[in-house]
């Protein structure tokens, strides 16, 4: 049964991208375990505003685990200590009375901090722009059932397509690698006949952009897969490697 708990929240505060950051610890009392983690931060912000202080800035939007906007590195875990969920789906019943909860922004060279816990993930958009699409214009496409797709392929493509682009993979990776994100998109299209036509160009372009933007080299630690809120598998990374190598050897 949910009860009320008293906690301390140790939050990273940083005024701007260039400024020096530091931790602030805020005590919070009577937090219902039925509230979500972000609702707890709402309560903290309400308190800070009432004290005339600036609220903690963090990214969030849909609050149902699908938009990929929320982030936060909580007690050593991207998206906190629960599996298969985003921070907005994390509930306070995962914490106990008296806990000190450390909240940090995603840390990676690819994701510079904007303010407090908010980071810039524009790099993901740029990788997508490099090749994360099938080149079709609006209109003039064949009937949806013109090309049958084996159900297993469609399901595997869907598994990969479930990526929400939150960046937890990069945040979890000791190498700051974006391979899980890139491989999920490359895999989705490599598995579908519509995407296969451009598979070579896509794999090369997306990997080149990923490298250019300063993400690290994957060393297959698998941390990304463990922390991914959508349980995207690292077998996608093997597929990306395969796609990329095939494309390069074909040149």
């Amino acid at each position: 049964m949910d009860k009320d708990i008293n906690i301390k929240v140790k939050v990273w505060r940083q005024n701007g991208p260039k400024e020096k950051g530091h931790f602030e610890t805020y005590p919070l009392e009577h937090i219902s375990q039925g509230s979500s983690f972000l609702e707890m931060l709402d309560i903290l912000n309400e308190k800070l505003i009432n004290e005339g202080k600036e609220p903690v800035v963090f990214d969030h939007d849909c609050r149902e685990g699908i938009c990929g906007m929320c982030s936060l590195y909580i007690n050593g875990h991207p998206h906190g200590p629960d599996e298969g969920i985003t921070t907005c789906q994390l509930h306070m019943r995962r914490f106990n009375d008296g806990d000190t909860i450390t909240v940090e922004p995603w840390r990676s060279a690819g994701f510079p901090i904007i303010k407090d816990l908010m980071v810039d993930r524009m790099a993901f958009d740029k990788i997508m722009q490099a090749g994360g699409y099938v080149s079709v214009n609006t209109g003039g496409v064949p009937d949806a059932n013109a090309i049958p797709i084996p159900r297993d392929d469609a399901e595997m493509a869907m598994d990969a397509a479930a990526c929400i682009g939150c960046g937890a993979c990069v945040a979890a990776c000791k190498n700051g690698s974006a391979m899980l994100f890139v491989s999920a998109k490359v895999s989705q299209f490599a598995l579908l006949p519509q995407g296969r036509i451009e598979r070579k160009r896509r794999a090369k372009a997306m990997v080149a952009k990923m490298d250019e933007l300063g993400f690290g080299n994957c060393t297959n630690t698998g941390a990304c897969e463990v922390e991914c809120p959508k349980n995207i598998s690292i077998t996608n990374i093997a597929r990306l490697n395969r796609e990329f190598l095939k494309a390069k050897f074909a040149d």
Partner: protein
Amino acid sequence: MSWLIKSSIGRKFVQSISGLFLILFLLFHMSMNLVLLFSYEAYDFLANEILGANWWAIVGTGVIGAGFVIHVIWGIILTLQNQKARGKEKYASSSKTETAWSSQNMFVLGLFVLLFLLTHLFQFWYQMQFKELLMIDGARHDSAQLVAEVFSNIWIVIFYLLAFTALWFHLTHGFWSALHSAGLNNGVWMKRIKVLGNVVSTIICLGFIIVPIAVYLGYSNLLG
């Protein structure tokens, strides 16, 4: 082929292929070592007549050496780049993500193995092939005897034991990771490859470590 150094997957591919090649070398080296358990004479024959200073042995040594050098250099490049990609500011709370310990420490394990390798090269290869090639006095041809001498020291045996433990960890991650980086993996094969990797690593490391222990305890050259 500049992509082998310029692209992340290319770099990983080099690391993967060089690693797999070195695993093959280790298997070969280990098989040869096992001969010591049975016959010093046969071992000397292999060391002097089959390998020794023959042209193929020299070429082989060169290739293997290049394999090591590439693996080490690429390993250093990858590690430095990855350090940079992590960003200047580190997490204050230590990661609680559950991953294989070896996978997080490949560089350190590799460094330790490298340190061992240099010692090992000085102890054996330098005394045997290197001296002979450069006509330095005192090149040894009694290879088995040399091995027996070196492994009569308990500290050296312990050092080898530690080194192969490190190598075991390095290989358990390295084997499947190499195949993964080369794109040779999928959902079905993931478990199989990991198991195979553990088996190969264990065979290699056991095969290597059994020799110094047996020599030290006097259980070698059993067939005389």
